[in-house]
C-alpha cells in the first residue's frame, strides 16, 4: 500500500515524482494541499470503504507522511 500511495501522490502532483519516501512530510511541508488533500481523503475513503469525518482527524499527526497515512488506514480498517 505504501508504494501505491507514493505513486498516487506523484500522479496527483507530477512535480513530486521521485521526491516522496515513507517519511517525507506532506502536510506540514505543504507538498499536499488544496486539491491534493481532497484526493488524499478520497484515496483514504476508498481504502477504508466509508466516508471520513475529517474534522475529527488530527491531520498533521495522522497524515503527514506516507507511513502515517498507511498506518491510519490499517487502523481504520480494523475498526470496521
Amino acid at each position: 500500500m505504501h508504494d501505491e500511495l507514493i505513486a498516487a501522490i506523484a500522479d496527483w502532483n507530477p512535480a513530486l515524482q521521485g521526491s516522496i519516501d515513507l517519511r517525507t512530510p506532506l502536510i506540514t511541508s505543504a507538498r499536499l494541499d488544496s486539491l491534493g488533500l481532497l484526493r488524499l481523503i478520497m484515496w483514504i475513503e476508498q481504502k477504508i470503504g466509508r466516508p471520513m469525518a475529517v474534522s475529527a482527524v488530527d491531520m498533521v499527526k495522522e497524515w503527514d507522511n506516507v507511513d502515517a497515512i498507511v498506518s491510519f488506514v490499517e487502523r481504520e480498517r480494523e475498526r470496521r
Partner: protein
Amino acid sequence: MADYEIIAYRPEFKDQVVALYSDAFRLERSECRKYLEWKYERNPYLPEPLLFVAQDGRGSIVGMRGFYGTCWRIAGQRVVIPCADDFAISLEARNTGLMTAIMRSATETLAQRGFDLLLNASGGTVTVLNSLATGWKSLGAMEPVARLDRLERFRRALHTSINGKRFVWRYAGDIRRSDPACFARLDRSRRRSVSHGDVVVGSSPRAEAMAQLIDRRPVDGRIRHVRDAAFFRWRFDNPTREYRFLYHERNGVLTGFLVVARYRQYGYTSMPFNIVDWEAQDDQTGSELLKTTLAWGRFPAIGTWSALLSSDKRKMLADCGFAPSELDRRARGMPCVLLKKLGPTGTHTGNVDSAAWDIRLIDSMHG
C-alpha cells in the same frame, strides 16, 4: 513552491483581485466587484479591506484570501473576529502549496495585529480540508436540513444516480436558476392576520426593530453574533442574494421575524432558498412565522442549518417536513464552522465546544 510574494491588499490591486475572483468562481466581473466592495469596503467592523494576495514574479495577482469583520458577544464583551472567506487561486498556481502559504502568512500577520481568533463560516470542502490541516478546529457540523417538494426530491435523486455521490460531494454540479415565483407569492401576500397577530412581508430589513427585539430576548450565555441595526443593514445588503423578511406584529410591536434568502443560482448540493435568521419572542410566534412562510412561499426546496437551534425550533422544522440534507457532506462533518486561535491559550474565547456558540446561517456567507 514557485516564487510568490504574499502581501496585504492595496486599492491598486482591486482590478486584478476582481478578475482573479471572477475567473475562480466563474462569475461576472461586475457582480464580483459589487460583492467584494460590499463585503470588504462597507463592512461595519473592519474599516479597511482585510485581504491578502499572492503576487508572482511578474507582479500578477495569482491568489487571494479575504477576512471580513464579524462581531461577537463573548462573556459580555464585543469582540471583533475576522472571518476568513473568498479563497481564490489562479489555475496555474493551484496545487503548488500556495494555499497553505497564504493561510500561514495571513494568520501570522493577523496575530501580530492583535486578533485573538479567526473564524471561517463558509468554507467549501477544499478550504475546510486545508484549514484543518493548518491547525483550525471545527466547532461542529451545522447539520443542514431541507424541505423538498416531490419534484425537487425526484430531480435530486436522479442527479445523484446519474453523476454518482462522489461527484456530487466534490463539485456543485449543474447550476440552475432559482424560481422567482416564490418571492412573488410572498410579495402578493403582503399583510395578513394570523391567529396571534399579523404577518407582514417586506423586502428590506427593519434593522432597528429587529435589533430591539433581540435585545428584549433573554440571553442564554452562548457566544453569539452581535445582531445590531448596523449589522442587519450591512448584512442584508449582500448584492448576490435577494431577501424577504416576514415580520410578526402584535399591536404594532415586532414580536418575531424570519428571513428567507434566495440564491439566484444554485447547484444540486445547495438550496435555492434558505431560512437564514429566525427570531421570535415565544415559540408560538416562531411556529406561526415558519408555517406562514412555507404556506405563502410554496418553496420547491428550502433549507437551513439546524445544529445550534433550540430543540423546540428543531422540532418545529421536523413537524413542517424538514429532513437532513447534504448527506454526503454531513457524513464528513460538513458544513462546519472553523475556529483558529491566535492569542494566548486558556481564555474563554478559544472555546471549540459547539454548545458554547449560537451560530446561524446568517453568520455564514452561505446565508
